[in-house]
């Protein structure tokens, strides 16, 4: 339990730092208005215990409930058929903000936001789209995008640097990534990772495999073990609950691994860093904007530049030369000198 509390506090602290950094202190928690805002959160089929972004969205909602004294309700979608009815349920009851979690819900948010123009919607990892995947740009929809490639690039720097300087385990110039399914949010991470590793160590070989699964750790472990037999030294998981098998495979082979979305240092001692996608911060921010009456539709991108993406060094004593390099790359991504690609480089 102790660990979990620490982890939770860490996340909350990150959210607080972020909300301060954004300078959105107008009103805040002090002079709460008389109205009790109602916020509805709809998870995708991963559910609340997905150990990934649905869970993080819930963490953000919980913090908002504490800070803003709002009413926050959650529905887990059991199948893809549930997205529209679950979003409609909250919208039809006059909720102030309905949040859809995940890329899979884009069309559903597009449809329902058109039916309820007076209800605010937010969607994590996507926009409200029509059947052709075009953003409908409804004024009542806020799209919360993440530059996963920023986070991927930071852990890519760590992997590339360790490999180049012979400070990984095998040091044969091979690292790898295991994705869940080949969809944009997954591939963005891998794109940044591969790009940055090659920047640090031009001769590096980056293996990329997919488990085609987000829930079964055994599947991801198998892909990871195949990569390990190809001399992979550092393994990056981008597959939610399935990817826990990657971290474990690396640990059992006494290699290094890298976690995703949340800080996963507790999942396995082999985790040297995690690529962070602060879905909790995004959720919290979206709620805060509604509570403060500052909601605006359109896209909001969370990246390194605004603290919505990043990395955490975990079970590794980061050498000072690597830290210097990380700070340099982070600074250059922030000021736009470096732009990690969204598509996996060849």
């Amino acid at each position: 339990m102790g660990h979990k509390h620490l982890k939770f506090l860490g996340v909350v602290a990150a959210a607080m730092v972020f909300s301060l950094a954004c300078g959105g202190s107008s009103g805040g928690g002090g002079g709460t208005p008389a109205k009790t805002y109602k916020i509805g959160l709809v998870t995708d089929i991963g559910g609340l215990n997905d150990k990934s972004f649905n869970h993080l969205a819930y963490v953000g909602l919980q913090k908002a409930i504490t800070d803003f004294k709002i009413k926050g309700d959650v529905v887990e979608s059991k199948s893809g058929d549930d997205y529209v009815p679950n979003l409609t349920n909250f919208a039809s009851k006059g909720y102030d903000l309905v949040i859809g979690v995940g890329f899979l819900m884009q069309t559903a948010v597009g449809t329902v936001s058109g039916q309820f123009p007076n209800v605010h919607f937010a969607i994590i990892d996507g926009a409200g789209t029509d059947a052709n995947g075009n953003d409908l740009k409804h004024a009542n929809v806020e799209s919360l995008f993440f530059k996963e490639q920023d986070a991927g690039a930071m852990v890519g720097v760590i992997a590339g640097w360790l490999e180049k300087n012979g400070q990984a385990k095998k040091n044969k110039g091979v690292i790898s990534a295991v994705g869940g399914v080949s969809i944009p949010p997954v591939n963005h991470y891998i794109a940044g990772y591969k790009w940055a590793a090659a920047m640090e160590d031009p001769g590096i070989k980056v293996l990329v495999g997919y488990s085609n699964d987000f829930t079964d750790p055994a599947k991801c472990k198998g892909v990871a073990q195949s990569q390990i037999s190809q001399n992979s030294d550092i393994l990056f998981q981008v597959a939610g609950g399935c990817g826990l098998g990657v971290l474990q495979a690396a640990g059992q082979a006494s290699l290094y691994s890298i976690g995703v979305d949340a800080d996963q240092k507790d999942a396995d001692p082999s985790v040297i860093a995690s690529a962070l996608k602060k879905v909790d911060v995004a959720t919290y921010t979206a709620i805060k904007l509604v509570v403060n009456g500052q909601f605006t539709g359109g896209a909001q991108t969370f990246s390194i530049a605004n603290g919505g993406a990043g990395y955490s060094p975990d079970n590794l004593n980061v050498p000072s030369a690597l830290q210097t390099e990380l700070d340099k790359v982070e600074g250059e991504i922030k000021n736009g000198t470096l732009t990690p690609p969204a598509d996996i480089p060849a």
Partner: protein
Amino acid sequence: MPIGSVILAFIIGALIVAVTGANPFDAYSGLLCGGFGIACSQGENPALQLSNTVVFMIPLLTTGVAVALPFRAGLFNIGAEGQLLAGSVACTAIGIKFAGLPAPVLIPMVLIGGMLAGALWAGVAGVLKATVGAHEVVTTIMLNYVAQWLVRYLIIGGPLQLAPGTSRSSPIGVNAQLPTLLPADNSLIIFGLPASVFRVHWGLAIALAAVGAFAFLLWRTSLGYEIRAVGQSQKAARYAGVSVRRTIIVTMLIAGAFSGLAGAIQISGVDHSLTDKYFSDTTGFDAIAVALLGLGSAVGIILAAVLFGALHSGGAIMQSDSGISSNLVLVLQALILFSIAANFVGQIARLIPGIRRPQALPPELPPAAPLMTEAAAPPPEPA
């Protein structure tokens, strides 16, 4: 349908809820509201809840029949899911390719296309069973996986993919889409909400007609007689001059067509494109429960589909209103199945003097026995 058994299941469910520290009354009022629009306490719109229940129910009707019909012939079709996927793929492909055709031509085309694809998928299992005796449980499970991977291939990197980086197909043509009962209009207000939120579509009529056709086929045609005869005893059926092999193949073809129809209706009436949600679709598996719960009869299947549709729809309201995980719905479904299968109520009633003993299992439901035994190995046809 054995009402007592359903009630018993809900009582046991309430105990589980209470033991885990939540309030059963909150849970059930949420389910009742979400399922039937009754007893809504937090401003839910009753008409919307009913509409959602019906939308969930529609594919369960046709897939329920697709499991129930082979049951009558002593065949266990675990493959309704794969057949449904085949139907949705065909519907999508035709609906995109021939988008220019007028609706009166195109809608029958996509639906029949879906039925043919489903029939083809199930037909593989039927032919393998009738010729080399391969057990349909194995073949239909394998065909489910093949269909699931085929769908992934088609819309991620394959020929049906909308655009690179997406996991969906293009939408089918407007003329391939089944209309909804109410106009799909955001500005028209009906029952206090925009008309477009009521998603009940004409697939309802088609699905009900399909259940009717199932009943007619089973009880009013010679094929239906043959199917039932094969299910009762293959040996007797053979003496009566029924071709067991032919009956097995035809039964699977028809069952597949029903499942394929479900997939086509779902694409044509609700989703309008093949999307990543089909990766995790479980309609074909829920259908097994619906068919068993409905005791293989048309009316039973309709009632069971209503119940499952209502539970599905109700779970979400229960969770949003009272915070009880919607996974409780699965627990309840299982309890209902246990309760009906074991007929606990009947067995308990038998112990109490003065109460007339209710009939045991209704005679219409063939027991599991022939599913795994006789039908498993059709002996060679006499010349």
